[in-house]
């Protein structure tokens, strides 16, 4: 079943043919993060793909993955490009490295998941929270509910984790 929804005034859709994304977002709608695990080499992968990037195996099993990790890099958008985001600056785009499968299969590889910085309810974080986050911040995954059957993964500060005293931030505030 195809999915259509509107998020921040943007039209979103997943086509009938897009089996990988339908399955990925079916789990997200249940606020449960799943990734494909290769049936052959057993490596997890992100984002959804048809074949395994490491061994080309065409079959995989959707596997629950803990949505926890550390900010690997980030940006802070002050000038919005899309109309939906122009009224929502500053906002942060975070590249978060999951604890799961970090440094595998080689030293510099990891599952690095893109999403915005949000509060725990999945709404874009206000400026005072944006100022707290940098490289090294510990994050946990939450979800923005967009519509029936569609939720987007997001990142919020992990209240239960030990945060770095000063996460690394761009020198000019």
């Amino acid at each position: 079943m195809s999915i259509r929804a509107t998020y921040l005034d943007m039209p979103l859709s997943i086509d009938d043919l897009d089996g990988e994304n339908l399955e990925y977002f079916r789990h997200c709608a249940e606020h449960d993060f799943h990734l494909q695990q290769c049936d052959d080499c057993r490596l997890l992968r992100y984002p959804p793909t048809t074949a395994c990037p490491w061994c080309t195996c065409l079959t995989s099993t959707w596997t629950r993955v803990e949505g926890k990790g550390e900010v690997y890099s980030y940006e802070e958008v002050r000038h919005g490009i899309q109309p939906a985001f122009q009224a929502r600056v500053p906002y942060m785009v975070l590249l978060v490295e999951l604890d799961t499968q970090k440094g595998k299969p080689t030293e510099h590889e990891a599952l690095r998941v893109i999403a915005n910085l949000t509060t725990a309810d999945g709404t874009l974080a206000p400026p005072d929270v944006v100022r707290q986050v940098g490289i090294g911040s510990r994050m946990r995954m939450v979800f923005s509910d967009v519509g029936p059957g569609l939720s987007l993964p997001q990142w919020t500060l992990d209240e239960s984790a030990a945060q770095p005293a000063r996460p690394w931030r761009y020198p000019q505030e």
Partner: protein
Amino acid sequence: MPLPADTDATTPKYLRDKYAIVGVGETTYTRGSGRTTRAMGTVAIRNAMQDAGLKPSEVDGMLSYSGNDSTPSTFLAGDLGIRLNFFMDVNGGGSSTEALIGIAIGIMEAGMCRCVAIFRSMNGYSQVRIGGTGARSAAPINGDALHGRVYGWQSAGQMFAPTFMRHMYEYGTKPEQVAMVKVVHSEHASNNPKAFYKKRYTVDDVLNSRMICKPLHLLDCCVETDNATCIIVTSADRARNLRHTPALIRGVVGRCSKPRADMHYQCGPISRVAGYYAKDILWPNAGVGPEDIDAVGAYDAFTFTSMLQLEDYGFCKKGEGGEYVSSGITRLGGKRPQNTSGGHLCEGYTHGMNMVIENVRQLRHDVDDYCPIGPDGKRQHTFDYREGGCRQVRNIEVTANLGWANPLTGSAMVMRRG
């Protein structure tokens, strides 16, 4: 610098210097061309043919690139009375120029045509803005965009920023060092009558300009302009009968990419860019190394893109790009000036072609600056690089172009004076 003896090459050495860029042309760099991409492209190709001294009947191949924002080769060939033996219009932006030059060499080597015009025509300010505003940002979000654009992660600056930020974190690169890229390129633009922005900027100007997407200030980002550009490639044998000293092509790399092309941030170090892989094709094929290069065109969609490529192609050590671009080496009069026309940051945005055009003119020893024209009709270069003066590099023999699509993909080329 004189070329060293041949080193080992991975491709046939007989292709080195066998093809040349013989003609270059462009339209005025503007914001608001008031013309179609067909009209601009026609003018740019015509200018390049005249520059080379070629008749339309002597051009029989055409290549172009665009993001569905241009006019196909067939219309421009028709406008100019060119009968084509080969043409192809490909999708893509930055990194296409050098890649298509490689394709041009391949199709001529295969005997499919003899002389190829490569063009890029774009109303990059007044029609389809490269920054992603307008129609591009209103498009519905599905498929891969559900993992990117839905998060307000769309424009080039937004897409590249994680690479730039991680570089600052890993190597301690400072904003004021990166700003020097803009400072130096703006100095060069001030000696280029064609440049859209001729003003010289300071480090403070860059750091005090408004923040667009941290770590990018407004002046870390290139200009958006309307323009068409064209280069003509043919064999070195034919080049000898044409108007100018040819720019001989030593070696090319086309759209060389990092792993995981679908989502390259899965593989680190993410502060590494495609040049890390491309250098191992470029230098052996060209038979030269970074030390032999007299001037560089390092794709400057952003200040950072120039700097990162200089590192990964080996002009300095990884992580020392900030020092390198602040050292004076990259200035006119320095050891290895770069982006001598002002590049994308100042001259105009062409998805890479203007920086190849500039190096072709540099290798002819005849850039169009503010130096006086002598009685023989030739420009008398003063090598006085102060504002409003000269921008010709003295005794230049070998150049490099480093083309950038994104951190993932790059192209490159080495040329030498024929």
